[in-house]
């Protein structure tokens, strides 16, 4: 049975809750809560992507587009029209779902390489739109003056406040997704991954499930984008380029896409690698990413989350 145990989840939640206090006391990691905000934002995207790619087996190389749609909808509506950020966040998610349906219905009929390239092309097209529609998006320079969030007068005006907000969302989404995985819907998704023919012969509406999970991943990416825009108060297109989609792929490949924990592990590691640990490498950063992908596909096909399983199998022999 695909059981996701509660204990690691509780431990993880406690660590997340107390971490800012620890960081306050240790100067060397004083900036980590800031990084953790980004890690949390990426987790939101990778959790959806893990469900889409790891569980349902559908490849998307254009997830940066949905991240960007959320960010730009929030940014434009709040900065230019002064609308309520929470409403904009919801509008962003609706917009992302609509785009996901429009792109997903024809794309998800495709398989393998075709699906990968269709989503890749979609991602690049959206990126070009962000650059070219300067009247709305500010073009390559981006948009400034995106307001911070506030809730019933409570201002999110510090890193720690965003930290807790973002991680609240991550946990909500994580639990929701775990429930999906352990339900009939999760089984249907995993069934589609192995055999579409057998799934539909067993009564699973394959195309509907593919669309639903694609839309779900788009909504999560959009939510992440909105949070990103409000946290940084500034966005520009380069955040949402092809390389970001690839980076998301690196995250879930490294973490392990067949396990929802892999999404979290991968998002963490790549965030800290790119913002902190690879700083010394600078130019070499990109090579490190490429090597990670190669090493993982060759030696760790199940990603880091698959290591306990590998050890178990190895011991049994």
């Amino acid at each position, binding site marked *: 049975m695909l059981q996701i145990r509660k204990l690691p989840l509780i431990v993880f939640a406690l660590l997340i809750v107390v971490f800012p206090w620890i960081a306050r006391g240790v100067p060397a990691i004083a900036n980590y809560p800031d990084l953790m905000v980004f890690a949390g934002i990426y987790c939101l995207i990778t959790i959806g992507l893990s469900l889409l790619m790891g569980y349902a087996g559908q490849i998307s190389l254009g997830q940066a587009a949905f991240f960007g749609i959320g960010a730009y909808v929030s940014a434009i509506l709040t900065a230019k029209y002064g609308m309520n950020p929470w409403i904009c966040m919801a509008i962003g998610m609706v917009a992302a779902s609509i785009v996901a349906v429009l792109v997903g219905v024809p794309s998800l009929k495709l*398989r393998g390489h075709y699906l990968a390239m269709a989503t890749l092309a979609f991602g690049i097209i959206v990126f070009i739109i962000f650059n070219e529609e300067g009247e709305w998006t500010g073009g390559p320079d981006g948009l400034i003056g995106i307001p911070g969030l506030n809730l019933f007068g409570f201002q999110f005006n510090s890193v720690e406040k965003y930290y807790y907000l973002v991680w609240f969302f991550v946990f909500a989404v994580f639990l929701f997704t775990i429930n999906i995985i352990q339900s009939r819907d999760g089984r249907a998704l995993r069934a589609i991954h192995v055999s579409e023919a057998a799934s539909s012969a067993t009564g699973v509406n394959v195309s509907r499930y593919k669309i639903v999970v694609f839309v779900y991943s788009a909504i999560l990416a959009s939510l992440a984008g909105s949070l990103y825009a409000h946290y940084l108060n500034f966005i520009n297109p380069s955040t949402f380029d092809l390389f970001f989609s690839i980076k998301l792929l690196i995250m879930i490949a490294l973490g392990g896409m067949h396990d929802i924990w892999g999404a979290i592990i991968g998002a963490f590691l790549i965030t800290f690698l790119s913002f902190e640990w690879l700083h010394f490498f600078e130019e070499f950063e990109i090579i490190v990413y*490429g090597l990670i*992908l190669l090493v993982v596909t060759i030696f760790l096909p199940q990603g880091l989350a698959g290591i306990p399983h590998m050890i178990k199998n190895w011991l049994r022999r």
Partner: protein
Amino acid sequence: MEKITLASQLFQYLITGLTVGSIYAMVAIGFNIIYNVTEIINLAQGEFVVLGGLIMVFFHVAVGLPILIAFPATVIMVTLVGILLDRLAIRPIRQPSVLTLIIATIGASIVIRGIAMIIWGKDPFDLPAFSGRTPINLLGAVIQPQYVWVGGFLLVIVVLLTLFFEKTIIGKAMSACADNPDAASLVGINVKQMISLSFCLSAAIGAVAGIILTPIALMDYNRGAMLAVKGFGAVVLGGLGSFPGAILGGLVLGTIESFGAGLIHSGYKDAFALIALLAVLFIKPSGLLGSVEVTKIKKF
């Protein structure tokens, strides 16, 4: 000054489009060669083109070797990279699936891109055109002599590949692998060697594309991804695995891009080819020439 008429303008777009399209066609042929033998879409295909251009810049401009030596030297270097790609990134994979192969070739392309960035930096490089840059005037359109070279090379590649696949034993063996790898290995064809060879061939063709493209459009480390996506667009347009399709697809895609950028919106230049790719995928994923009949003539 000569008056630019609409007709000559359109003719200009067509010529430019066909030239760029020839490059896409070469990338597409590279995709197909590997795909037909291995069923792998090598997403590092664009990197071969980039390396072709940049290594040629090194040999020809920095070292100062004459073209006739620098050209083959570059092709050989890139071919070696092709072999390494197969050996280091593809062959070690124990459970190849579409997804792992996509991830592996993306990983390899990023590594190559990173190395290229460290060696050549981020700035674009120019190469002297093969026969100077004095434009030829034809029906009011300005044609760079390099355009003629591009078209000529496409033709040469097509002729050589046709001869290779139809007249040589190795070529026939490769075709056999493409049709049925199990049967091929039963009759004593070394499938692994054929896979290596397919990577060599498509790396070499990529290198040629890069060398002849650079005098027209410059070259920098970061161009590979877009070239690969557009090359794949040409592949899909013509039908996956089909060589005539790849050429037609490349030329059509280049033309669409050129007219789109000229007549509609130059900022969306890159988007047109991708929209065309999506349109074909959504409407007729088997491509313009793709059908049961075409799979039979997928070789020249």
